[in-house]
């Protein structure tokens, strides 16, 4: 399988799998499609670092309040509070052992009408890229789901964690939206919202209908979804950077505070494995934005670099 090149992208299945968050098979009936999972969401560009007065980047460390000393990661255990300052200790191995058996498979046993899936359920977005030289079964499923307006629902396990997931098809691409479980959503009744009275004044409805019509548009405008605060922060940073105002260089110390040499932008790998529409979304081009140059070379990073973006994308903030 790895001898031939994938027709879609110039990367073989092994490359795609190795650089994905998760890889396994998507199956419906007896058809199994090897796929690799990539994040569709990434965290914002503008995280601030904490520095000492002289600009030295600070490291986050754990401290034992009893011994009043700093402790390392391997001296930590996870404890579940059971009252009276007591904890039940649960180890990594014990948690890993709870992960269900079928963890390499997304088995689509249920298809539903696309509109039945309330977006309130959607937690995080991912894309599924074909992870074999044959894309036929992938394209077949994507096309049929898209044309019939159907979505698949399944559960799957990624990194010791079970997810309820909706498999959607759009533009010939399969995506996976992890979904909140029903008991993770509140209803208007549990919040205590008033129920509607049987009669709503039609004149008021018409007034709102006109106002809605006045603001009707066919498309989304991405500018309305921009993070103004991030923009403002980046402008401020650029101004100060140009002036050389409050600029400190602490390369070795930055690495010491946060050892993370290799970062792979999984979104970049995804774009390589699927292709980007007209190349129009090349990421924000901005002088001074971190990583806005080096994303290409970073994708060639080592496997250990995967952990950072993978973990970030996998967890909830």
């Amino acid at each position, binding site marked *: 399988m790895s001898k031939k090149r994938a027709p879609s992208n110039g990367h073989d299945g092994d490359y795609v799998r190795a650089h994905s968050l998760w890889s396994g*098979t998507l199956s419906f*009936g007896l*058809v*199994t499609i090897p796929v690799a999972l990539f994040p569709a969401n990434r965290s914002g560009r503008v*995280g601030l*670092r*904490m*520095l*000492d007065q002289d*600009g030295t980047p600070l490291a986050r460390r754990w*401290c034992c309040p009893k011994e009043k000393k700093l*402790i390392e990661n391997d001296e930590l255990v*996870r404890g579940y509070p059971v009252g009276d300052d007591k904890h039940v*200790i649960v180890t990594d191995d014990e*948690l890993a*052992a709870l992960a269900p058996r079928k963890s*390499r498979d997304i088995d*689509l046993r*249920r*298809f539903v009408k696309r509109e039945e899936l309330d977006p*309130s*359920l959607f937690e995080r977005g991912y894309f599924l890229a074909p992870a*074999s030289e044959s894309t*036929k079964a992938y394209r*077949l499923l994507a096309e049929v789901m898209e044309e019939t307006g*159907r979505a698949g*629902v399944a559960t799957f396990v990624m*990194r010791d964690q079970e997810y309820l997931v909706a498999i959607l098809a759009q533009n*010939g691409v399969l995506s996976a939206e992890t979904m909140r479980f029903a008991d*993770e*959503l*509140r209803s*208007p009744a549990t*919040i*205590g919202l008033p129920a*509607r009275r049987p009669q*709503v004044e039609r004149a008021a409805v018409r007034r*709102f209908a006109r106002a*809605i019509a006045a*603001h009707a548009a*066919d498309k*989304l405008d991405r500018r*309305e979804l921009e*993070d103004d*605060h991030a923009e403002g922060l980046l402008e401020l940073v650029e101004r100060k*950077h140009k002036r050389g105002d409050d600029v400190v260089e602490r390369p070795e110390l*930055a*690495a010491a505070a*946060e050892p*993370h040499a290799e*970062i792979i*932008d999984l979104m970049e790998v*995804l*774009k390589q494995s699927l292709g980007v*529409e007209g190349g129009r979304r090349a990421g924000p081009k901005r002088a001074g*934005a971190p*990583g806005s140059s080096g994303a290409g070379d970073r994708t060639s990073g080592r496997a250990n670099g995967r952990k950072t973006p993978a*973990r970030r994308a*996998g967890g*909830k903030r």
Partner: protein
Amino acid sequence: MTKPNTTRSKAATTRSRATRARPAKATAARKKTEGAASEPAATRRRAAGQARDSTTAGRAIWKGTIALGRTPLPVKLYSAVEDRSVHFHLLHAKDKVPISQRMVNPKTGEAVPSERIRKGFEVEDGVFVMLDREELASIEPEASRDIEVARFVKAGVIAPQYYDRPYWLGPDGDREGYFALAEALRESGREGVLRWTMRKKRYAGALRSDGEHLSLIALRPAEEVLAATDVEAPPGRPLVAAERRMAEQLVAALEGPFDPGEFRDEFRHRVLELIERKKRGGKVKKLRPRAAPATSEGSLERALAASLRATAKERKTA
């Protein structure tokens, strides 16, 4: 591009969704309100469908006014998400004491008190532009109660990848107006794109109606989202009509209604059970993952046909 995350905690497994570990300090407030000892039982009771105590569930987190039409509509915002994660504390293995977090200067090895900490933006590897409190305050959005309406788009126009946290909106006085907007919005088949400032942060959100109540789902900033419309489908030879027909039949055979209540976070429940067992001193068993072989190009049609036969049989026997 993606910036390395600056906040990082222990091992990968402590960051998973249903089980989160954190220093004890952060959970202190929760501990007080819920009573830590009863939590596993409480979580299961709630999972079984009982309403949570209304003091936490029914509290509005913000108030604002939707500016649409001539009369502004005051609303209250409620979280629609119920946190069910199993919250662990991180403990020092040696003495089982909940640990706390310190920011340490790696040069001196000294913990730096919060009032001495400065903020900085990493413009390139190891190069920081320092920002002081006043500068950061100067770029904070102005506090406002206005919820601005940007546009109303047809349902389905917003790619699923944008949706973030859901909120319910409730009336804040004007019930007539609230229910009238909910009805008008439902009838329009559209959802609104709204913008507002909450807790010093700008938000965009989708205003939706289920016909009775209004909800608002926060939308992720554009630069954090890769939507399905941004990527291309994998290329390949045209699909065979016979295979397409069979795939359609198979999807139709597996179709059913969507009932979210049918699915349950088994892992979370197993974690809670494990905790209960360990509390009483029980044992744990191990399981292993396995993978299925891929369907090859040549056998795709056969696999489809066999699947159809299998689902047909299942239906007969069911």
